[in-house]
C-alpha cells in the first residue's frame, strides 16, 4: 500500500475507531471501508461473488458514511459478509461500490468483531499534505 492511501486503527475507550487517507474521495471511501472490514474480519474466505451497492448523500462526509452503512447492512439484511470493496463510480451525491461478499454461514468464523453502526461522531474530512483524511468511530 502506498503512503498516499491507507488506514490505521485509532484508540477509543468505548468503541472502535479508524483513520483513513487517500488522494481522492473514491480512494478515501475504499480505504475507510477496508479499515472497517479489517476490524471485523480475520482470515476471511475468498470472495464468492460481488454485489453492487449504490449510496447517496451530500458530497463528502455524508456520502462516505452512507457507503459504509450500506456495506455493513449486507450482513443483517442479505446474510452476506462483505470482504472487499471497490468504488466503481462516484459522481456528485452518488457512489457505486462493487462489494466482494461471502455467505454469512461460510464466514461466521472469520467475523470476529460485530460493528453495529457507523457514527457521525467528530466526523470531518480534512486535507493533509495533499491527501484527504478522515477519522471514524464505529459502535460495537
Amino acid at each position: 500500500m502506498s503512503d498516499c492511501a491507507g488506514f490505521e486503527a485509532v484508540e477509543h475507550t468505548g468503541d472502535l475507531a479508524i483513520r483513513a487517507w487517500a488522494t481522492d474521495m473514491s480512494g478515501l471511501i475504499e480505504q475507510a471501508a477496508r479499515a472497517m472490514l479489517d476490524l471485523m474480519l480475520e482470515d476471511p474466505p475468498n470472495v464468492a461473488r460481488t454485489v453492487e451497492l449504490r449510496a447517496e448523500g451530500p458530497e463528502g462526509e455524508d456520502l462516505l458514511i452512507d457507503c459504509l452503512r450500506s456495506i455493513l447492512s449486507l450482513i443483517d439484511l442479505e446474510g452476506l459478509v462483505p470482504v472487499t470493496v471497490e468504488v466503481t463510480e462516484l459522481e456528485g451525491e452518488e457512489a457505486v461500490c462493487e462489494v466482494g461478499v461471502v455467505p454469512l454461514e461460510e464466514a461466521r468464523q472469520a467475523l470476529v468483531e460485530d460493528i453495529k453502526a457507523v457514527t457521525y461522531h467528530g466526523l470531518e474530512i480534512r486535507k493533509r499534505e495533499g491527501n484527504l483524511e478522515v477519522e471514524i468511530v464505529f459502535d460495537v
Partner: protein
Amino acid sequence: MAKQFEGTLEKIDDYRWRIPRDESYGMVTEGIVFADEELMKDLRTDAALTQVQNVACMPGIVGPSMAMPDCHYGYGFPIGGVAAFDLNEGVISPGGVGYDINCGVRLLRTDLEEQDVRGKLQELTDSLFREIPAGVGEKGKIQLDEKELRRVLERGSEWAVTQGYGNENDLEVTEDGGFIEGADPDAISDHARERGRPQLGTLGSGNHFLEIQCVDRIYDDEAASRMGILDEGQVTVMVHTGSRGLGYQVCDDALKQLQRAAQKYGIDLPDRQLACAPVDSPEGESYFAGMACAANYGWANRQIITHWMREAFERVLGRGISQIGLQLVYDVAHNVAKFEEHEVNGRRQRLCVHRKGATRCFGPGREEVPERYRDLGQPAIIPGDMGTASWLMLGTDEAMQLTFGSTCHGAGRTMSRTAAKKRQHGREVQSELEGRGIRVRSAGLKTLAEEASYAYKDVDRVIGVTDRVGLSRRVARMRPLAVVKG
C-alpha cells in the same frame, strides 16, 4: 474524533466536579461529573469530558449536562451521560440514546444455593448457549409476520407474555411494565423491520451476556428480602441485551433525518452525532415514536430470553420452575429517552430525560415504581465486568434532586478494545476465569479478550462513589459463577 478536554474543571467535593458554563464554547449550562480522584484520572485522558461539554451546548437543556461515575468516552453523549430537556424549547436526540435503544439489564432471583448449581455449570452454560442464539448475525427461533411484529413494537414485553413467554409478575417488575406508550410502527423503516424480524430472542454480541451469579454480600437485609434476595450464596441470574439490529437501524435512520432537521431549525451543534430536533417538532415526534418501538422490542427480547432461560434451568436441574424460583426482581433500560415529571427550581416540570449508559433509579414514592417496591425506591441493576461483581441498588431522594433520578449503568470501560486484545488472548482470559471457578461460554474468543476485567474500571469503586454521593444505595453484591457471551 473529539479532542481531549481543554476546558476548566472545578472540584466541588470528593465526588463531584463542575465544568463551568463557557459561552465562548457555546455552552448554555454547566457540566457536572460524579467521580472521585481515581475515576477522574481516567476521564482526563480521553474526550469524555469534552462530550459532557458538548451536551451542555444543546438547546433547551434543563439543569446541567451530567456524567455518572462509570462515564467514559462514547460518541455524541458520553457513555454515562444524562441530560433533560424542556418540552417546548428543548430537543430530542438519538445521540443521547445510542444505537442499542433500550439496551438494558434484568436480574432474576432463585431458590437455589451455589452448591445446587456448582456441578451443573457446564451443562447450564451449554444449554443456555444452545437455546439462546448469541453472536454476530445470529437469528432467533421466532417467526414474526408483519402483524405480530407490529404488536411487539407497540406492546413489548406484554406481547411476549401473551404469547406464553413469561408471566404477569414479569410485567409488574419491568420498567414501564415492559413498554413505552407512543410507539408507532409506521415511524420505522422497512430496513429496521427486516433487521428486527429474525432477531427477536437473540443475545447479540459485544458486551451482552447471560450470567449465573451468587449473592456475595447483602448490605440492606430488609430491602434485599423484599426483592427476594435472602442469603449470601443464593443464586441469581442476569440478562444484558437490547433491541438488536432493529434498534441500530432506527438510530441510523433518525441520525440521517435529524442532520437535516438540525439545519432546518437552526440548531448549531459541536458534534454531528448530537443531531436533534425540537421535542415538539414532527421530526422529534417521529424519532420518539420509532425509538419507543425499538425500546419495546428490547423489552420483548429480554422477556423471551428469560423464558428460554427458565426452560434451560428446568431441563438441566430436573426440577420444576416452582422449585427453582427464577422470579424477576427488576428490569431496567439504560439507553433511552423518556418523558418524566421532575421538580425544577421548586416547580413540577415535564421533561424529556435522555439516559445513555445511565439507569433510571427513582426514589421512594414515585408512581412509576412498582407498588411492591414503591416505599423502597426503584431497584437499579448494575452489571460489572465478567470477572468481578454486579450490584443491586435502590433509587434515592438525592438522585431525584441531583440527576433527575439517574445512576450509573455498569463499571465503565477504562481500556480500549484494541489495547485489551493486545494484552491477553481470549483463551488466556477464559483460562484465568475458569481457574477462579467462573465457567465461560462465548461465541468468540476476541470478545472475551475485549471484555476482560482489566478493560473496565473497578465496579466496586464506581458503586462506592454512587452510594456515597447518593445517586443510589447498595442492597446486594453478586459475584459471577458462569457467563455466556455473544
